């Protein structure tokens, strides 16, 4: 939850920063006097929620007509209630958005109960990508080579089955040659961090922002060591390091170092789907039939807000590195392949879920 909150807060800081002094878009005045509603499919307080509230407060200066923006929490159904409300019960008039966390994408791919909305057809306004870092306790394995040589199975913590971390750990375990065993039921990844510090868990995977904020102190005290990060996937299919953890090599880099070749095969293709969803996380989506001119106005507003130097400055102050933002078109491009995987990839996900 912490990670979500910080990410949201950063988004807010960015958007706030771009506030009054920022240039305003010219263009149609459709939004003048109107109210934009942002549906948040989680409860109040999480990153998804706070991002939306900040967006609501700050982005209006970039939208011609400066509409009122309200945020409405509609939690439940593993995020499906709020998302389906947008796609099934609101008109495609450009006045309704929904903020979707990355985990909902995986649930949608696996057609979990309730996740019946057309995510692959929904246009994105923009996203704030976030990768993941996998760590080991130093007394268990001081480096990745030892970690692989010992082979596991390593107990890894999580909040609930089906998160990106679980798929990433299982799939990379197949590729690199280590086994994992998942322990679920923790209230948050901060509680997982406590369990690792206590020595109850030998290793874990967490979001890169959470890593910087909650786990880095354990790295500095040599309690844990980062093994690799997932990184971010570009629209060209390249894996790059997350700017938040520039010193940690990606799993792709580590694989090349260990095996002298590029990773390939079914597990790698499935893993790239997880990477794509991470790379387009905390995204704001609209109804599939939203008029293109209204979508363009909101995309431009998002891009201008996150392109401001103040965004970079404020996120650097908090995280040590600027938080990247991806515009709406690129978000959709990154997700394009990920949201239409082959039946075999889906089968691999299901196997990974059962295995974990």
């Amino acid at each position, binding site marked *: 939850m*912490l990670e979500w*909150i910080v990410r949201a807060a950063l988004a807010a800081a960015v958007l706030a920063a771009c506030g009054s002094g920022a240039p305003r878009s010219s263009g149609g005045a459709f939004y003048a006097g109107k109210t934009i509603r942002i549906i948040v499919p989680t409860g*109040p307080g999480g990153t998804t929620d706070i991002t939306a509230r*900040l967006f609501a407060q700050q982005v209006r200066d970039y939208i011609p007509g400066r509409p009122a923006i309200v945020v409405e929490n509609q*939690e439940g159904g593993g995020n499906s209630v709020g998302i389906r409300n947008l796609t099934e019960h609101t008109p495609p008039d450009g006045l309704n958005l929904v903020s979707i966390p990355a985990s909902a994408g995986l649930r949608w791919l696996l057609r979990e*109960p309730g996740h019946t909305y057309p995510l692959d057809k929904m246009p994105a306004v923009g996203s704030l990508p976030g990768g993941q870092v996998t760590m080991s306790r130093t007394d268990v394995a001081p480096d990745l080579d030892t970690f692989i040589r010992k082979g596991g199975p390593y107990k890894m913590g999580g*909040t609930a089955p*089906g998160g990106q971390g679980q798929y990433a750990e299982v799939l990379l375990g197949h590729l690199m040659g280590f086994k994992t*065993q998942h*322990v679920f039921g923790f209230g948050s990844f901060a509680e997982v961090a406590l369990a690792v510090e206590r020595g109850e868990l030998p290793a874990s995977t967490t979001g890169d922002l959470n890593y910087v904020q909650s786990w880095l102190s354990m790295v500095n005290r040599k309690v844990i060591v980062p093994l690799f990060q997932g990184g971010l996937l570009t629209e060209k299919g390249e894996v790059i390091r997350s700017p938040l953890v520039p010193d940690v090599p990606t799993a792709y880099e580590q694989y090349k170092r260990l095996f002298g070749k590029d990773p390939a095969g079914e597990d790698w293709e499935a893993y790239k789907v997880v990477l794509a969803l991470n790379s387009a996380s905390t995204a704001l989506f609209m109804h599939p039939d939203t008029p293109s001119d209204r979508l363009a106005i909101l995309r431009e507003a998002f891009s201008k807000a996150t392109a401001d130097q103040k965004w970079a400055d404020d996120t650097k102050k908090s995280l040590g590195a600027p938080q990247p933002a991806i515009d709406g078109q690129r978000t959709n491009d990154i997700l394009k392949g990920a949201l239409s995987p082959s039946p075999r990839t889906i089968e691999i996900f299901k196997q990974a879920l059962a295995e974990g």
Partner: protein
Amino acid sequence: MSELSVLAQASVSGLIQVFTWPTFPLMMLGVAIGFLVGILPGISAGATLALMLPFTFVMKPVEAFAFLLGMLSISIMFGDITSILFGVPGEPLAASMVLDGHPMATKGQAGRALGAALMSSLLGALVGAFILAASIPIIRPLVLSVGAAELFGLALLGMVFIAALSTHNMLKGVLMGGFGMMLSTVGSSPQVGVERYTLGIPFLFEGVNLVAVTVGLFGVSELVDLYIHPIGIARARVGPLGGVWHGCKDTFAHWALALRCSLLGTILGVIPGIGSSAQWLSYAHAVQSAKDKGGFGSGDVRGVIGPGAAMNAKEGGNLITTVAFGVPGSTTMAILLGAFLIQGVAPGPSMLTNQLPLTMSFVWIMIVSHVISVGLSFLFLQQMVRITEIRSSLILPGIVLLILFGGYSADNSLFSMGLTILFGFIGILMIRCDWPRPPLVLGLVLGRLLERHLGIAYQVYGFSFALRPAFVGIVLIAALVTFAPLIRRRLARQAPEVPSELAYVPES
């Protein structure tokens, strides 16, 4: 320099920071906003903080925390106020305040109940903050020593208190506790992710909403009660001063109980993941530790003092765990932590060493904002107490709105509103059949913790978790708490008979 002098220096430095410009005015602004939002039904403390978070980006950490915590302090108090005045818990955790606080209001003692609640809250906040400040050097090892097995043990210990909440029929209480635990299994399994008893309804995928259940169980029956008694909430004449000062004096008369519940709240607040049960467990402790239990459930001031003290003491514990480990124990703490992080303040051991003055300023802000919130609430208490004298037909629509909006705002869904009404009928049925309601809520709260921590403990340690010394110790305490009344009764039977004229007769 000794640890004590470092702590003292940090404490003074932290206190100075609180009273510097613009920290103090911002705290007052937070209190004022919290007060205005608090009187509106259905807006939780978490939602209020989330709404205000964007305004903290331009503030320094101390300023942001002063602003948000000022708001939080008064929001928590409003949870207790609606519980006492209307029988509708403002926050699910404040529902235990309904049990004795509201019956006091119906007896014309709303002022006394509110006075006791606010004074015990203040005492709890002060005791909690001072204990925490003093125990900072040992907090990290303490928290790190509590693993999954111990958390399971503590949840188990909490279940033992169901007996204390069962009023006069243990079997019914245990059955209701079991019903609550059964309800806690609705939704996605935390360990394997399988949907259980959701009937395919998406609103149940994440479990039965605790807010809807508590508001329904305790609030709807109050509607029926008001309908039957058209004279108003207070069935007896409200005294000229409403008894506010009497309630304050009650807190000091029962200082040992307030102190014990403050300690309980602080300890439960420090341990991540268990704080949500603090107010219920302190109520159960108040009942269990009382020699004369007859008045509980029908307006015993001790049933107000215990939960009031624990609720605010818990916040202090929560805060330290949040800054020292980055583990927020509640939604509100998660939002506060988000506010810190945006300012570049990262949680961790450094918050208890290099950044100790900053941490101490947070502790001081908690103390000062609580004192201000209580003072402000006292100013308006007399007017609030008068609400209980308003004719039922005038106040009934407002309480219907409070209940329905409270249910709806649980997750902004009509489903939760329906759930509130359903549990309202269940609550009425339970009252009619003399089935105690508190064990159901405790079963629901602790059932989730039990399942989560048992699952984690087993997966981490296997069955050997049951042999861990701390776990064994907690189980022994649980056994002692369970069998203590039986042992006492047995010993009493063996003791020489006391002439009836000398025997202790509890006050009616």
